[in-house]
């Protein structure tokens, strides 16, 4: 049944390409949206999907080795949500039906790849699906074949390939030491030996590769260029889920299932996380391009997630997972806002904007919700995840890091307030008097995400303890 989550998007893409192309093109949007909604429903309704469907016939033909736990479920839901939102954004920006069709197919392949990443229980299969996701992202960034997009895509390809090489080297060393690539086998082999030089080298190589993929400082070089030069829908997709699934999730999975939380590893993670959180926020303050500011903000938020992971406790892990979900929601929302503004105005330069709130009320309101959630203001969802991470840092004894995290929150609030003031409030620039609000296919996902971030913030305390407790199994297993 888990294999279906990988197979179905891929088969969807495959079937859409069979001979009846005209019919398929019109159906493609609906089929794709249905698939993503199904993915979200399967996670939310426990009896619906993963436990009920039992295709014994499938298990006899194929021998796939997949597994699911609390962390995977959070990721699967985020993947479905962000993919759905990207689909809606795309229909407003790409007009040519051939291009739309290609985009939907590449999106399906990317979703297939990410589902594989979160479900894999074998380090090499994880790598294969990671590459599938990377290849799909390359295509998405270069989709418009514009000059800047191609340049951003090339930088991303180069750094991603270096990360690939480091990762394969790490896998080779793990394979050398344990004779297999299965998580359980590597874990028991690592426990049986002391931490020899080879094992430490393997872990170091792998973790560095994941820092590059996740866009953490000092390996973040590709991220602002790739995010800001990609077409609008691709930026939403990348920022919303791809960097997190490819970088942060794999890091958590490696630490939890293979390497364990040694003291050096925790200190490295905490330092890199704090560094990214603060420096990313400071860099965001100085930007004049809307999307570049959001990219540096993403680097900062991913630093927060790594801070949560670095504590090594159940609380920290739960906080990190919650922040992954929240970031998927509010960052996609903010990127969609920037896409709406860019489409209406034709520019991304903040210094030229002002007073757009009066002409684009829905965009303005949802962007306020997204910004406040990112800055961690109650009662929005971001407040809870940041609070949990700070409490986890404090109770695990990393008091200085907790203070740094609070400082980072203040910086985040600062740059978002300045963003809001320069873009949506203030005086309206004369040449933009006649702009209109964004179209329905962009408004609907914006409102959806705004409602989610508000609703989760208000209702989370009711399910909070169940949520945190489910991560006990993740850490133990």
């Amino acid at each position, binding site marked *: 049944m888990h294999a279906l989550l990988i197979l179905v998007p891929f088969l969807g893409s495959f079937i859409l390409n069979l001979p009846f192309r005209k019919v398929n093109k019109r159906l493609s949007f609906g089929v794709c949206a249905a698939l993503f909604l199904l993915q979200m429903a399967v996670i939310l309704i426990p009896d619906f999907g993963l436990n009920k469907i039992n295709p014994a016939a499938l298990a006899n033909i194929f021998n796939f080795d997949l597994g699911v736990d609390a962390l995977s479920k959070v990721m699967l839901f985020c993947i479905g949500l962000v993919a759905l939102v990207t689909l809606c954004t795309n229909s407003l920006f790409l007009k040519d039906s051939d291009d739309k069709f290609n985009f939907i197919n590449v999106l399906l392949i990317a979703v297939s790849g990410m589902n594989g990443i979160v479900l894999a229980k074998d380090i090499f*299969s994880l790598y294969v699906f990671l590459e599938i996701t990377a290849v799909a992202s390359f*295509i998405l960034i270069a989709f418009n074949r514009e000059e800047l997009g191609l340049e951003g895509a090339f930088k991303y390809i180069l750094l991603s390939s270096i990360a690939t090489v480091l990762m394969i080297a790490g896998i080779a060393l793990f394979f050398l030491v344990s004779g297999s690539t299965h998580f359980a086998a590597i874990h028991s082999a690592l426990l049986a030996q002391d931490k020899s030089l080879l094992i430490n080298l393997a872990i170091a190589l792998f973790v560095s590769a994941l820092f590059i993929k996740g866009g953490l400082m000092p390996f973040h070089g590709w991220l602002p260029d790739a995010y800001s030069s990609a077409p609008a829908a691709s930026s939403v997709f990348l920022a919303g889920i791809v960097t997190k699934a490819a970088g942060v999730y794999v890091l958590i999975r490696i630490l939890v299932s293979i390497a364990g939380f040694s003291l050096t590893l925790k200190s490295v993670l905490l330092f890199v996380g704090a560094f990214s959180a603060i420096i990313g926020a400071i860099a965001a303050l100085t930007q004049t391009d809307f999307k570049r500011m959001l990219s540096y903000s993403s680097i900062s938020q991913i630093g927060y997630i790594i801070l949560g992971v670095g504590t090594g406790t159940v609380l920290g892990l739960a906080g990190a997972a919650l922040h992954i979900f929240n970031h998927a929601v509010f960052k996609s929302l903010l990127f969609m806002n920037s896409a709406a503004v860019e489409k209406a105005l034709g520019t991304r330069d903040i210094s030229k904007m002002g007073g757009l709130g009066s002409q684009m009320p829905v965009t303005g309101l949802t962007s306020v919700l997204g910004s406040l959630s990112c800055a961690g203001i109650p009662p929005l969802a971001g407040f809870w995840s940041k609070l949990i991470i700070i409490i986890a840092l404090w109770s695990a004894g990393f008091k200085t890091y907790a203070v740094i995290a609070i400082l980072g929150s203040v910086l985040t609030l600062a740059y978002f307030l300045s963003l809001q003031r320069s873009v949506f409030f203030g005086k309206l620039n004369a040449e933009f008097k006649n702009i209109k609000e964004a179209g329905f296919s962009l408004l609907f996902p914006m409102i959806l995400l705004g409602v989610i971030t508000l609703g989760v913030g208000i209702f989370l305390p009711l399910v909070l303890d169940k949520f945190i407790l489910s991560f006990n199994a993740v850490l133990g297993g």
Partner: protein
Amino acid sequence: MFLDLIILILLVIAALWTVMTRSLLRASLGLALVSAILTLIMFNMDASLAAVFELSVCAGLIPVLFISVISLTQPLTFKEAVEHMRSRMARFWELPLIVLILGVILVLLSAKFKAKLPALETQASARFVLWHLRQLDLLGQIIILFGGVFGVAVLFKERKKRG
């Protein structure tokens, strides 16, 4: 044992030539040569399936890809080419020295290095492992090939005239 060493040294020399040679065309051919020597090494180590793949794909397909790109892009003028070659040598001459010194250092270090490694002996053949135990990887390969097809369809399309 001695033969292995010679082939490995040849591999490094071929890689050095590939990187340092002046023309791009020769660099692509150098890449094919490096792949061919790697194939020999793999055959020597009983990895015949992987060796065949490496030979046909990396020594065939990829250099052809690079050579077609190189022939589609315009060459430099003669003056630019001479200038380029001079600055090239200035940048690249340190590489063989670094490689040699590093090689010597590593050989000296490896004498002191001990590690406990498992020595399993599996009787399974590579084909069995690939088709029965690693089916998820096979699925992944099919998906990525599909993705590659879409990549080509998107990236290699002629740009339509902007209206």
